[in-house]
């Protein structure tokens, strides 16, 4: 499986992954900053990462999970620093032959990311 992981303070513009004739399914997830946190309005979240550990752990998790859910490619982008409301904090694109492994890998990876990848929301800006 082809894996690309990128953590960067730049805004995320989700490019379509390069198409291949054996790809029948593309599943994506975009995590966006909502306008409130604990019912209080906010203008942005601040994210921090332990690089490169966060990138390495994401790589490792994806490789592990792909054994159960074989896919062709995964592209993960996580933004750090200030991420304004409505903008993208994380974008994941998974290509596979069929939709089932793509959906399963996507959901399982997000669960593991929220347990094991050293990235933190450190602050809310109001």
């Amino acid at each position, binding site marked *: 499986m082809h894996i690309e992981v990128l953590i960067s303070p730049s805004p995320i513009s989700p490019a379509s992954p390069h198409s291949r004739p054996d790809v029948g399914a593309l599943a994506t997830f975009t995590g966006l900053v909502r306008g409130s946190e604990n019912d209080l309005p906010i203008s942005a979240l601040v994210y921090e990462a332990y690089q490169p550990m966060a990138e390495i752990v994401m790589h490792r998790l994806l490789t592990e999970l792909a054994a159960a859910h074989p896919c062709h490619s995964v592209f993960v982008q996580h933004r750090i620093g200030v991420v304004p409301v409505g903008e993208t904090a994380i974008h994941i694109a998974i290509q596979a032959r069929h939709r089932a492994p793509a959906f399963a890998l996507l959901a399982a990876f997000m669960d593991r990311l929220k347990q094991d990848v050293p*990235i933190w929301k450190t602050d809310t800006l109001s």
Partner: protein
Amino acid sequence: MTVLYFAHARRITGVSQEEIPATAPLTVSAFWDRLIQHHPDLAALRTSSRLARDNDFLPSSAHIEPTDEIAVIPPVSGG
């Protein structure tokens, strides 16, 4: 030992990195005792945080060498 602090751990210690002198290997538990000696408020993070070395989480059975670089990883909240 070099210790790296992230997120809430960095807020508590006020530094993102520091040297803590050690002459012999430490258990994970003894390492935490040492950190909390230096920064008493880190005690609040002890049960919820994990330690990492070489981009991997440390099992609680690990030994930490005086030359290691150890990261203190509070509960994560990415995505």
